């Protein structure tokens, strides 16, 4: 555990080493997120409400999604690189260490640009999410569950590369989750909606947590916890099984 904590500390120190670059990258990402808020404000300004979604609920969704994305793509940045590392044979340096490989890989790298998402999400919730102590507590819990689920999904799709030998699937999975999660889930119907609650659980990454913050519902919270746990276990198992098929690329990297 001490080794993992030191790894995480080093990753943050590395990201913060060039403060000017860190600030610039975080600002750019925040501007990027502002554009999405502007889009939704314009959209709902034009059409009013869409299947129970209005601009206030959408802002909550964006706050949850940017925070969760900031953690999954920024704090545990290697979650999205597992597939690439598996295919390129870049895990040699990890396997000789006396720590759990997956935990080490996840904590090893921080992506500064996505920390901008995390900062933006917090500011957005504070400014437009009507934060009360109760809502803030639910927001924090929902973001943690959402970021765990997103990270687990990225590791799961990335780990499939151990078996199929290509990493594009993991990249596509990442795009799918972030893209589909950024829309009101009720826009979808039929099979598409079913997919968003199961195979590509984008609904649980943003829409369900946003609704929880808006109006807490124990059944919904339980569903989020169960799905998060299920994907977490599946990701961990797939990675462990995948390691047995891992082939070294004879590249000594810092992962």
């Amino acid at each position, binding site marked *: 555990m001490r080794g993992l904590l030191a790894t995480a500390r080093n990753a943050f120190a590395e990201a913060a080493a060039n403060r000017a670059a860190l600030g*610039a*990258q975080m600002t*750019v*990402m925040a*501007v*990027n997120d502002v*554009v999405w808020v*502007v*889009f939704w404000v*314009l*959209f709902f*300004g*034009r*059409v*009013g*409400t*869409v*299947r129970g979604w209005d601009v206030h609920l959408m802002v909550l969704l964006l706050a949850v999604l940017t925070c969760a994305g900031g953690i999954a793509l920024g704090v545990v940045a290697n979650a999205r690189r597992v597939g690439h590392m598996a295919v390129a044979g870049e895990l040699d340096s990890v396997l000789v260490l006396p720590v759990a490989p997956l935990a080490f890989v996840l904590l090893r790298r921080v992506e500064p*640009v996505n920390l901008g998402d995390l900062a933006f999400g917090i500011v957005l919730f504070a400014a437009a999410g009507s934060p009360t102590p109760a809502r803030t507590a639910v927001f924090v819990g929902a973001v943690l569950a959402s970021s765990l689920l997103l990270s687990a999904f990225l590791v799961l799709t990335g780990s499939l590369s151990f078996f199929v030998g*290509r990493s*594009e699937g993991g*990249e*596509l999975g990442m*795009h*799918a989750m972030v*893209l*589909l999660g950024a*829309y*009101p889930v009720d*826009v*979808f119907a039929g099979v*598409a909606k079913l997919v968003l609650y199961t195979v590509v659980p984008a609904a649980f990454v943003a829409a369900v947590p946003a609704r929880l913050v808006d109006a807490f519902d124990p059944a919904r919270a339980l569903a989020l916890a169960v799905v998060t746990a299920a994907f977490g276990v599946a990701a961990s198992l797939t990675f462990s099984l995948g390691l047995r098929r891992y082939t070294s690329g004879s590249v000594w990297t810092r992962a």
Partner: protein
Amino acid sequence: MSRRAFAVTVATAARRVLADGGGFVVVLPFYVMVVAVLSGLWRVAAASNGGSVAGYSAVALTWYIASTEACTVSLDIRMIDEIGRDIASGAVAVELLRPASVLLVRVGTELGRALPRLASCLLAGAVLSTVSAGGPPRPAALLLALPSFVLAIACNLVTQHAFAAAAFWIRDAGSSWFLYQKLVFLAGGMLIPLEALPAWLRTTASLLPFRAMAYTPARLAAGHLEPALLLEQAGWLAVMTVVAAAAFRAGERRLQVVGG
């Protein structure tokens, strides 16, 4: 650079993309996903607004989104960053040795890489739009949109090069591609038809070149038979080519290469 040399550059890059095939593995599924989601959103919006939004019917909106996304997904979104890195690292110096314009060779190569992707996205978009919403609102306008798609890609490419040329002076195009992309998203009408924007934003967008990169072909494909849009687009292409060429000419004169 002769017209023939430019055509050969485009054709060679296109052949490479077709031979590789790997580039389609991510682009095409991603495109289909984005179009399905975004056009679905606009169709729901139209349905809850009496059947249309800003003068676009649900069918027109579907063809509009399929078109804007095809224009943007076909290009490498981080191109500004990559050009900037080549300039800042001095790698571009090797290209100066060729008896041809650095800008035109680069634009020609990227155009060649984009065209096969554009064609495949448009084909997928047409099938998806027809299945999910209906056939093209006005086939004659769709025919007019075909050259407009190529002009949109060309216009986007030269404008990205004009932006990236800043690296000759500041040695870093950094994350400016992110901001450029967002200008295409909103001022270019990629996410939302310009007619749906508030008046002040619509007026601003009408003064910028970004509308030529997504809105123009999409407006045509959505059934608006407005040939003047093609002329406007060609005008923006000419203006931005002059700007990019001037920026590269000036930048190449002050290029400093550190190391080897």
